[in-house]
């Protein structure tokens, strides 16, 4: 089989789910005739028609609102944010209407909001964001952020089939850069389960999305220096796979968290708290973190590079941690 990019894997998931269940519809800006800004929905309109693939006005609140209303009638809408940054425009609809629906009055909202996220492509302050933590802090949502083509396909399928609203982050740096053979048979990847990308004894690097690849590269460098790092890809941020985090921490006794999200209020802080609660006695050193800076995502390449976590920064932090 030919290798498939993450973008193609996402498209495959959409086509297969659309084929499987007529209750699945898609809404978004330029997703129909144009096939989406990144072509994730290319061909979907031609095959499934304008009743199921709906080109909308530039109205994020209306898009998510309409999708919510559709889900109340038993449909499973998949909403595209042209860039995930624009989810800020419908923050109220997502966090107050959609997220609280089941808790408040028992009305499930089986909806997926997916969109390209993340930096490294010189998109500047409004086309590079990692806004996942706004939503990880919102009970009622699920937040998924895959790093491989296999996971993207399997997790998107799970997200579409889930009875809860799922935010599905697609790291645009990875869209065409990660490739792999996918099984020809149908599969899904469960939401809420982390994956061990590399087994190791000396320390644990917890990461997700593009930063998971950065962490793996750093682990290869560290290996040559005699540091055996375990790399875990969280894949889902809400619900977080506490068991995977704690069991790896108990195994290596040292934990480094790497994320491309900004530092303050990032998932690293939550993970540090979880480890203090449930694995404190097993830790040999402080929970370390390598993150983006606490700034907006800058535009110019040297600035952006300085802003983002890098292989060097991860390796350096791991060396420090390994000394404990």
């Amino acid at each position: 089989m030919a290798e498939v990019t993450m973008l193609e894997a996402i498209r495959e998931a959409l086509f297969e789910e659309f084929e499987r269940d007529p209750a699945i519809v898609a809404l978004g800006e330029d997703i129909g005739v144009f096939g989406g800004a990144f072509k994730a929905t290319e061909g979907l309109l031609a095959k499934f028609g304008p009743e199921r693939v709906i080109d909308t006005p530039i109205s994020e609140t209306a898009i998510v609102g309409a999708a919510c209303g559709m889900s109340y009638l038993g449909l499973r809408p998949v909403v595209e944010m042209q860039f995930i940054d624009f989810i800020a425009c419908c923050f109220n609809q997502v966090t107050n209407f959609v997220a609280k629906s089941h808790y408040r009055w028992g009305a499930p909202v089986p909806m997926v909001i997916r969109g390209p996220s993340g930096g490294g492509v010189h998109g500047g302050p409004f086309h590079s964001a990692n806004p996942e933590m706004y939503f990880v802090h919102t009970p009622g949502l699920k937040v998924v952020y895959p790093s491989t083509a296999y996971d993207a396909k399997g997790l998107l399928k799970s997200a579409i089939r889930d009875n809860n609203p799922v935010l599905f982050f697609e790291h645009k740096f990875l869209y065409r850069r990660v490739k792999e053979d996918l099984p020809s048979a149908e599969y899904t990847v469960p939401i809420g389960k982390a994956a061990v990308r590399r087994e190791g004894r000396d320390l644990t690097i917890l990461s997700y999305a593009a930063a998971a690849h950065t962490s793996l590269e750093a682990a290869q460098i560290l290996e040559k220096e005699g540091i055996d790092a375990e790399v875990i890809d969280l894949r889902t941020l809400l619900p977080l796979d506490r068991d995977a985090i704690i069991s790896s921490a108990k195994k290596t006794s040292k934990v480094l968290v790497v994320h491309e999200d900004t530092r303050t209020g990032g998932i690293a802080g939550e993970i540090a708290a979880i480890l203090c609660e449930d694995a404190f006695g097993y830790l040999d050193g402080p929970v370390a973190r390598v993150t983006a800076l606490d700034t907006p995502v800058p535009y110019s390449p040297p600035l952006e590079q300085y802003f983002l976590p890098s292989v060097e920064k991860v390796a350096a932090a791991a060396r420090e941690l390994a000394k404990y």
Partner: protein
Amino acid sequence: METKLTREQQLELYYYMQLNRQLEERLVRLFRQNKIVGGVYSSMGQEAVSVGTSYALEPRDWLAPMIRNIGALLVKGFKPRDIFTQHMAKATSPTHGKDGTSHFGDLKNLHVISPISMLGELIPVMAGVGMAGRYLGQKIVAMTWIGDGGSSTGAFHEGLNLAAVQRAPLVLVLENNQWAYSTPVSRQVPLKNLADRALAYGIQSRIVDGNDAIAVYETSKWAVDECRAGRGPILIEAKTMRMKGHAQHDPAEYVPKEMFAYWKARDPIARYEKYLTEHGLWDAKVKAEIDARIERELDEDQQFAEESPLPSPETAEQGVYCEGCHEVQADWRRPKEQVMPPAASVEATWKVSDFGAATAPPRAQNTAHAKPATPYHKAAPQRPASPSAPLEGSSEKVVAQDIAVAPPLRVPFGRGPKDRVFEREQQQNQPSKHNPRRRRRR
């Protein structure tokens, strides 16, 4: 206004309006007895709007109430006990104490969607309900309400615009009760008629006397029928008056006394009682029977609510996610094959018939409806009314005139002579004195 409603139906309208009012008066008493957990948002004076609009819906139709639409909830089938228990935060309430007031709904049977407190957000949601209903072949209509104040939110505009582009079967009732909390409508919207908002979306609209139950019903029935025939969405402005404060804590001293007096003389229930009497639809005995029934039902349900327990604390942790507790199932009323390939497949190109150049002076265009592009050859003929068909009978006549004569609104109220923006605008209107190079002082 003429009506085809039977005598029984007209008496039922009275029943619901009076039930609405008596229920809320009991809520006020309970509030004063400290038995209500949160606020009580009175709809006194607006009962004809809630009841008259929702009475035009069929059981298969969907509605989403706002805070002052308890009457609509009663018409759709909720019981006074649901309202009592919601306000008293009891375990027996439809939300089991998770939310209060009119914030509850029922997906399966009554087709009611719970509102949130942020205004306007229901409009896109109900547009989506209408779109989904059409997709599933259900021939339903969605109805929701918005206040004069709420019509200024972004969600209102986004939602109504999307509904218009999609020709969604949505009836939006703009309940103009003159006050957005303490702010009069004139400071919210620079329009005499809020129905004029419809012009911006190329949709039909009507203005109705919101204190005339029959007129409200007939206008709503027309709107519901239009939507069901594929000629939605429709905006109805119901002109009415909020006769109490925003909520119980608010004595509404900012409202001129004369204004209350004016509207009190037009009380919707008193007017309707007079109407029933003048048309020989009832007599004192019938009225007494209905009133007694209302008292009986309210007694029973209030007692139920007062005797109900509060929820057990640990349930606070439950129900954030659907973990198999609900089945998500669409009610298909058309063959699924129609929305699957090959039947659903189209050529993915836009068919643009209007190239968009100016063809007439812009002002004259005010009354014309822009023709949206008609895409995908297969899709268009399925709809009864082509989206490109011009819509007749909207309220544009009034509209265009109002917009044309309305003076630009710029009131430096509350900011005084130090209002620099105002000052600057004044200077810009006198170009000879204006020096563009003058620096703005901060």
